[in-house]
């Protein structure tokens, strides 16, 4: 395994210490396997992808494995520009998280609630708070971050890779490779 995603388990905003239950970092193999095993996974991507556009291509690769994508903020634009909108749904992150906490929600495609959500490319403080909402109000959904930050309110996360763009891309590629297997 090329990238050690278990290092640097420090919240990206250092004072973001919620309480006794804090995320563990996992390697890409475990994270990939958990996502692959999910029955109703949802990839949630945000507007930070515009600062690292290569990530749109990686999200599309994940989308092509059959995992639907929720494009939050105006990130749908990145998918439209790449001609990939097949299973991409435009929705705000906060209403999406609000729906995710309701067990009776039928999902973006009407086929039922999700069991695993995977966040990437979202303004750190915002995604941290949304993970917290799920952590506290719908614990049936597994919270995974494949963002470049250590996400303290997730169940599973990478350590901080915010200052290692190549390493981060490599880590995401490793997850994608597992999903494609």
């Amino acid at each position, binding site marked *: 395994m090329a990238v050690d995603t278990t290092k640097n388990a*420090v919240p*990206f*905003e*250092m*004072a*973001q210490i*919620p*309480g*006794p*239950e804090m995320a563990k970092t996992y390697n890409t193999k475990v994270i990939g396997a958990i996502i692959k095993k999910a029955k109703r996974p949802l990839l949630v991507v*945000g*507007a930070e992808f515009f600062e690292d556009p290569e990530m749109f291509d990686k999200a599309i690769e994940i989308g092509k494995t059959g995992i639907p994508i929720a494009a*939050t*903020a*105006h990130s*749908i*634009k990145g998918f*439209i*520009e790449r001609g990939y*909108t097949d299973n991409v*749904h*435009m*929705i*705000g*992150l*906060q*209403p999406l*998280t*609000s*729906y995710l*906490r*309701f067990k009776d*929600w*039928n999902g973006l495609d009407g086929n039922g609630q999700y069991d695993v959500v995977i966040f990437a490319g*979202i*303004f*750190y*403080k*915002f995604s*941290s*708070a*949304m993970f*917290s*909402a799920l*952590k*506290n*109000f719908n*614990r049936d959904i597994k919270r995974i971050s494949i963002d470049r930050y250590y996400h303290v309110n997730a169940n599973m996360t990478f350590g901080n890779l*915010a*200052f290692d763009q190549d390493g981060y891309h490599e880590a995401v590629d490793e997850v994608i490779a597992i999903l494609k297997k």
Partner: protein
Amino acid sequence: MDKMEGSFAVEDMQNVQINIGDVVKEAEEWDQPMGPYPCPSISTLRNWDFKLLNRYRVFYSPICDRCTLCTYGPCDLTGDKHGACGLNQAAQQGRIVLLAVLMGCTAHCGHGRHLYHWCLDKFGDIPFNMGDEILVDAPLTRTITGMKPKTLKEFGPVLSYIEEEVAQLLASTHVGQEGHYMDFESKALHAGMLDSLGKEVSDMIQIISYDMPRGDEDAPLVECGMGTLDKSKAILITYGHNIAGSAEAMFYTEDNDLWNQVDIGGVCCTAIDNTRIGEGLGYPAEINDKYRMIGTKGKVAGAMGWWRKLVRAGVMDCVMVDEQCVCTDALEECSARKVPVIATNEKIMLGLPDRTNDPIDEIVDDLVNFKMPGVAIIDPIKAGEVGVRTAIGVKPNRADEAAHTFLSDEEFQKYAESCTYCHSCQFVCPPHIKIGDVVQEAAKGNLEPFSSTYEICVGCRRCEYVCPQKIPILSMFAYANQEFIKNHKFKMRAGRGPVKDTEIRRVGAPLVLGTIPGIIAIIGCANYPNGTKECYDIAREFVDRGYIVTTTGCMAMDMSIYTDEEGKTIWEQFPGGFDGRNICNIGSCVSNAHIHGAAIKVATIFAGRNERGNYDDIADYILCKVGACGVAWGAMSQKAASIATGFNRLGIPAVCQPHSVMYRRAFLGRVDKKEDWEIIDARDGSRIYCEPAPEHLLYVAESVEECMLMMSKLCFRPSDNSQGRMIKLTHYCDICMKYFGCMPPDWPLYVRHASELPLKWKEGMMKELEEKYGWEIDWKRKAIIVPEPGSDKPGPIRKTDVSFDPTNIERKIRVKK
């Protein structure tokens, strides 16, 4: 027996005293009966709150999973755990929200109470007169309390009402009191409403006392920006929100003809209020005779985000702080630069010696000779004189310091090269500036990154606190932006105050029918996620589109520092009326109340609703019929929380910036729950399923693009007529096409009739409705066929009905079915 004021003794009756507290005059001037809820107590409007909260579900995103407020704790409340007292996570979040809203509310109300006493002392009991064009003169006071103050003193009972409610609300947060999140939120909504009332009282008092503009769309343009402060003079900065001391500094300067020796620049809302003094209708005479248009001599140094940038740019010789949103290390920052600080309000004394009763000459001597870094003077007149004299006196004494305001070339280079690229700064930067990269580039001689991120930096200084090399990053920013600072010169329209009744008459019908697509209220602080320019972009987008754009506080100041291709600020590009394609600077934070007031006045002046003690009826009208949306794109303080919550109780949605998740809660609708959107038709009591309009009440957006899209969407109302709906839908779709590159996926929800489809895309949309959504289209008539009620066929949620009279309140039903 000694007699108290307001008491009299009855002769021949021994030891009997009859006390008369207040003489309650039945106000003969009211032309309407008292409504059902004058001075509501903390649960009086609970039914209204629950209507809101059942539709707009409370959404919590805890920042802390623990409770540490009593000795049982810390308690872990994560998930379904309860604390030792029994409280669960949702209730704890509601409790924290309520506390935050109370902090904001009391900041505004405490401000009002201070001004009340001070202005009564200074001016006496002056008439409350807003001029001939504002007869509905204190709409929140009338609606909430049922009172109609006629003099300054008559605002006293209004403040007393707020203070009693605040005491009860705060008591409910004690351990073992309130235990359910819905009730905490109802109480938070109550506190938000009180906040709006406190703001109105505060601003009305200062408007009538200092003769500020009373709804003047042509309020003067004043100077704004760091570069407007003249370094050849002494510079006195007045910082905070309460004008009392700052106004006295301006009066002293005028009385002693010192404007050629001193510049007075405001920071935060004191800046806005300085520039409003003496620009009103000419009364009270004391202000008009001596200080007519004195406000135009004050300058807006900057919004709160510019404070530390001003410090590092060296544009101050003396600072007076008053209250609210003052960086509490102001004394440390200033004393390091030999800038004396004068604390002028009991709420911020900074550990300074109280010199209120000392002779002015002695205090000035101590300050100008640096015998002490600052003083507290809780007497506005004395503080104002000391501020001006100290600024003038200390300027030559700190000339050496001023000469070294900026880092030298060598110092800058040394600091840039000392960066170890450890990224500690980047870990704490709120807008995520890649500070390490910026500094590294500077070490190579490239200052561009320091320039391009200067306006993105919110001036929080967290980077400096964590830097292991002790690099003064803000000073490096200042060094790299010296030209920018020098040229930072703009114009801002002075705060105009309330909206005039005549303006409401002009826009009432187009607003309720939707042909003016909405009122946009751009309010709040300066903690922007991506720089100050976004507030200009938001304003420009909506003014261009014909919305009524209103603004207050820091965002009003920050949008002033951008110009169009012709070099015109937004105030020079558009008129200042309350109308479509206009932009109003209403005033400071407390002037926000006039935006609530404008919405209330649509209900009262345009629709003839009685406002007196009738809050829920008015709020219901606004929620159903007045397309208004607030945006706090730099929301930072607890006041922003109380402001938004006050808007929400009055039926006005608000959108906030992504950092606003720190407030922990939102109010979000569920489109998939049809039953949540059932509205009563007041004509006959029938219940109609409506489109989700507005869909949310409090919403955090991730990007400014999403913010603008949501603002346009949250202006939809059930009462829109077809033309109005078409206009609103056009903007909603157009903003989405512009920034998202596609149509919004939920646009069909808002279509009731083919005439509501935007002309630009009408044909394509009809095809999509037919092919993708299965709606029945009559292509010959180009009409949408609305299925019969109860039918399973796909189609619009309801048909258009121009007479539909939506309400959420049963007592508004005129004839029961």
